[in-house]
């Protein structure tokens, strides 16, 4: 069974601080996606990483896919209150690349 574990589970920080969220598995994924989800809404795609070692940047967010394609990290620089939300990683696998979702990291950025 493919599992994705995210850490930390909860994170409360002050505006302007930096943070890193980790997504780890013992399984290899063909691609890995990061989503952000607001309460009562659907996950919104932030980025897809495909190649081992790949790094992608989206403004203040930096995403990295592990060399072995088993883990990933999300780094946020100078967090803003608007970054508050649930961050989900999701690995693609199986015959149709169904997504296996991680356990989620709930981020609260205090002004």
């Amino acid at each position: 069974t493919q599992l994705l574990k995210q850490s930390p589970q909860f994170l409360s920080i002050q505006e302007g601080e930096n943070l890193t969220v980790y997504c780890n598995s013992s399984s290899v994924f063909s691609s890995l996606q990061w989503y952000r989800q607001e309460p009562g809404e659907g996950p919104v795609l932030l980025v897809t990483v495909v190649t081992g070692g790949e790094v992608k940047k989206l403004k203040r967010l930096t995403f990295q896919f592990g060399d072995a394609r088993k883990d990933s990290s999300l780094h946020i620089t100078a967090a803003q209150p608007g970054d508050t939300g649930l961050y989900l990683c999701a690995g693609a696998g199986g015959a149709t690349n169904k997504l296996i979702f991680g356990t989620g990291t709930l981020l609260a950025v205090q002004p």
Partner: protein
Amino acid sequence: EPEVTQTPSHQVTQMGQEVILRCVPISNHLYFYWYRQILGQKVEFLVSFYNNEISEKSEIFDDQFSVERPDGSNFTLKIRSTKLEDSAMYFCASSLTRSYNEQFFGPGTRLTVL
């Protein structure tokens, strides 16, 4: 910007009743998915659909569930006889290709079974 839409946003039903959840995927996408999220839990895969047939389904997707693409735009999930434990948010997603697999999610339907 194209997006996945879902209706209704909230459905309340009695146990044992049939419900149909509707989705309109992004128009040029070819792969369609249903996921569900029980309150406070992870998003779980239910089923994937391509070329008018089910490609893969999870253990959750038993005989009570079915999917259909009745026309060129809609993608539906039917639950034949709802149970209390079917109460969840149901998300539809679509992707253009299988290999790159960027899946875009709809806003969800909150299903409450009483």
